[in-house]
């Protein structure tokens, strides 16, 4: 065994490289910290500061806030926002719960199709649903004309309707996950004790999805209160906080009042986020590892009823999308249904440049966002230092920052005289950065979760073998996490395609984006062109989703040999800390 003993103790002069390794680790953390500081903390601090100044830069204290609360026209936006958000939340979560229940707890046919159809709204910018509702129920809507009933779509009613449509898939996904994780043993026990079906539903099913329901409520509430597109299109004179910011900044050039409304808007969104985090922390213990999955039951009457319900919802979704598609290819909706492609010529508002810009920005957002969130999550999770706790909290912040507020913050930070980063303003780069920051938290948490599932000893084994961490990161961590990495990049791409709120303040001549074009075309009365642009956005989204689906299948097949390992409990609980 000469070869085994040779080299023992010798040739271990590796001090230089390992010191360099530590330096690389610290440098990466510093870059990540600097990114969060420059593109999140500093701009948000600007918003807070500007809300205390007047438009000439004089310090006013809280005078802006007093003026906001005392001006009835502006102050109404607070109650309007809350009312609309609460109504939309209750309706969306109620509708989505029954839908998700049908998908997970029955064996009705077509569950896969129902699920796909309900996902469609994710591929369109929020305001598209509002445009479609106007086409259907507006003063000249097709339903209004056919039935003669005008439901008065402009205002709170229309906002709530369109928001329910837009938020439905988000709530459904959460509830499907919650309802899917049921423990059959509880149902067996309840049935053995002679409980009625209603009693089982009230004592087993509902408590089991309690946290899922709460989470869905918070997500929908935050989506609605921070949404700008829908109230802009269908709100009419009904002002909400997000549109109020837009009106103050774009309409009246009153930046300080925009900042003031922004800070107030941060409160409910931030509160919803904090409560949601507290609730989610308690969710994990609910279904234990020993749980037996629930087999859906066979109640025929219930199943038929639920099938009818799902069909109705799916028909509504398909109907709305048909309105969008049809209105874009007919001469003059709803008067002249001759087919034409003239709306796809886009004679104003950037035309096809906007679409190409959008695809390009979405691609860059996917690449940059995935890189920053995954590497950031890795540094925070695996290379614990004193700084990582602060970085973790900062990484969670963006989800509670409404897009409008982030956009305004970027104006303050990157369009100020004398700012070194002014060169960013008016470029595609600032759009990419704002998208990365706006959608930062969810991918960051996804990456953290998938990193937490990996054996904590990987890094220690590498260290003992003298292998630097970045090599193990590249050879082991990234390949194992590839499915989540791909999922993260898809999340960034799809959101970047449809987002409106942050970028609406940041587009400039030459950097128009498709979603903003939809808004501007609709504003200019070119509704048909707006829906045509929407159709193209939806098309790109669906196409990219398909590409990702094929990509993920390829990855799954290629890694099938070793992914069995993750299903095994590789890291058993240690016998001592």
């Amino acid at each position, binding site marked *: 065994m000469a070869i085994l003993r040779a080299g023992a103790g010798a040739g271990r002069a590796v001090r230089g490289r*390992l010191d360099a390794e530590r330096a690389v680790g610290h440098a990466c953390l510093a870059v990540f910290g600097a990114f969060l500081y420059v593109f999140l903390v500093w701009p948000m601090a600007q918003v807070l500061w500007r809300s205390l100044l007047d438009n000439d830069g004089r310090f006013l204290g809280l005078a802006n806030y007093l003026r906001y609360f005392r001006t009835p026209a502006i102050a109404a936006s607070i109650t309007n926002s809350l009312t609309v958000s609460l109504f939309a939340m209750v309706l969306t979560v109620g509708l989505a719960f029954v839908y998700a229940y049908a998908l997970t707890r029955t064996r009705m046919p077509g569950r896969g199709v129902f699920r796909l159809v309900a996902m469609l709204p994710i591929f369109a910018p929020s305001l598209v649903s509002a445009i479609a509702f106007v086409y259907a129920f507006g003063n000249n809507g097709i339903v209004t004309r056919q039935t003669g009933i005008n439901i008065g779509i402009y205002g709170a009613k229309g906002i709530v309707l369109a928001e329910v449509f837009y938020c439905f898939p988000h709530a459904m996904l959460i509830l499907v996950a919650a309802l899917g994780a049921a423990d059959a043993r509880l149902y067996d026990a309840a049935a053995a004790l002679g409980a009625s079906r209603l009693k089982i539903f009230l004592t087993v099913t509902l408590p089991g999805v309690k946290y899922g329901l709460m989470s869905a409520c918070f997500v929908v509430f935050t989506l609605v209160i921070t949404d700008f597109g829908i109230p802009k299109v269908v709100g009419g004179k009904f002002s909400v906080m997000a549109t109020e910011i837009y009106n103050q900044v774009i309409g009246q050039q009153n930046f300080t009042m925009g900042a003031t409304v922004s800070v107030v808007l941060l409160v409910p969104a931030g509160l919803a986020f904090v409560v949601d985090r507290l609730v989610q922390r308690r969710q994990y213990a609910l279904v234990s590892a020993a749980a037996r999955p629930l087999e859906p039951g066979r109640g025929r009457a219930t199943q038929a009823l639920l099938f009818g319900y799902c069909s109705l919802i799916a028909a509504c979704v398909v109907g709305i999308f048909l309105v969008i598609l049809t209105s874009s290819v007919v001469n003059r909706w709803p008067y002249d249904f001759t087919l034409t492609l003239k709306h796809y010529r886009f004679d104003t508002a950037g035309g096809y440049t906007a679409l190409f810009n959008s695809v390009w920005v979405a691609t860059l957002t996917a690449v940059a966002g995935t890189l920053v969130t995954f590497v950031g999550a890795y540094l925070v999770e695996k290379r614990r230092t004193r700084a990582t706790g602060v970085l973790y909290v900062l990484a969670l912040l963006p989800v509670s920052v409404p897009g409008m507020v982030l956009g305004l913050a970027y104006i303050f930070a990157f369009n100020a005289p004398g700012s070194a980063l002014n060169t960013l303003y008016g470029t595609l780069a600032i759009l990419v950065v704002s998208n990365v920051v706006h959608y930062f938290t969810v991918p960051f948490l996804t990456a953290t979760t998938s990193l937490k599932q990996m054996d904590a000893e990987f890094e220690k084994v590498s260290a003992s073998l003298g292998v630097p961490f970045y090599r193990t990161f590249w050879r082991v961590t990234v390949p*194992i996490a590839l499915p989540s990495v791909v999922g993260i990049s898809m999340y960034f791409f799809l959101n970047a395609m449809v987002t409106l709120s942050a970028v609406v303040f940041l587009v400039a001549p030459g950097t128009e984006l498709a979603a903003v074009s939809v808004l501007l075309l609709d504003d200019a009365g070119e509704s048909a062109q707006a829906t045509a642009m929407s159709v193209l956005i939806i098309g790109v989204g669906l196409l990219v989703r398909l590409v990702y689906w094929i990509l993920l299948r390829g990855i799954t097949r290629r890694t099938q040999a070793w992914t069995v390992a993750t299903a095994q409990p590789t890291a058993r609980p240690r016998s001592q800390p």
Partner: protein
Amino acid sequence: MADARPPAVALEGIVKAFGSVTALREVSLTVRDGEFVCFLGPSGCGKTTLLRIIAGLERQDAGVVRMAGRDVSRLPPGQRGYGIVFQSYALFPNLTVARNVAYGLQTRRAARRDVEARVDELLGLVGLARHRQRYPAQLSGGEQQRVALARALAPSPSLLLLDEPLSALDARVRLALRQEIKALQRRLGITTIMVTHDQEEALTMADRIVVMDHGVVEQVGTPADIYGEPASLFVARFVGHMNLLEAVADARPGWARLGPHTLRHRPTPGARPGGPLTLGIRPEEVRIGAAARAAENRLTARVTSVQFQGAFTRLGLRTCGEGGPALECDLAATALADLEVREGAELPVALVPGALRAFVTAPAGG
């Protein structure tokens, strides 16, 4: 054997606290070159913390870690020159068996051919040459653990650290792997430190055992020492099975009173006359029936239970009448046949002085 070389590992006054909890209190010990040492103790005794300090995965609050005379206290893990195997295996699931074993070799800018040769050699050594191109998930638990061992040994470390390497395996695989690891360690002559909470594992594998409790080393010795001469009541309780009888020290040194009886025991330093003593005797050392007749320290006992355990039978006994101390006695099948045992029977029992250990018990409240 006089050895002029410095010990493979020397720990001097290691102290470690996690917040207000002290994990290690001034632990000092040495591990000789080529020795197989086990850190044994219940969970929370500090054995894993001690191993992680040697590995450089945890930094001690005070004390020095030396390896072959060199102070490595401040060196990062990669520069200390050891291989480690964790309880979870921590094999990289996306790399084949061969790539896992080669993981620590490829950074050393070794020629590709040399790396391949080394991988072959190690896989041959652990008997997994056939599984070169498989992924960890395609191997059994025992095979995975052997890959982890090969990976740790690949860069020719001078020290092998094993952190509860067998506790994730089922009983039969564990027994086989015990032998294998021990044989491999002998062949390579590599200094090895293993952490375990399984006393049987420690007794069968180690050259020397370090028994730990509450961050303190209770006893260091060969398996025979630890089993035969436990230095403290804790060691007596933790290693093997031991009958423990509460007694009182007699005026004569080397004698103790148990109920109406006065028994002679192994000499114990520090026993005060009238002070509490705990007498200890292993079940297989209790003589019973004819074997007890002529022996010293004879008592009568009543059989309270008879438990058939396969190779031997364990008798539950009660001495000194109703409410007296209980005692267990292991009898081989042959000895049992000569004895008429049934529950309720009265039999003579002897606790021979050579086997009767005595531990000074701290008086309550002291």
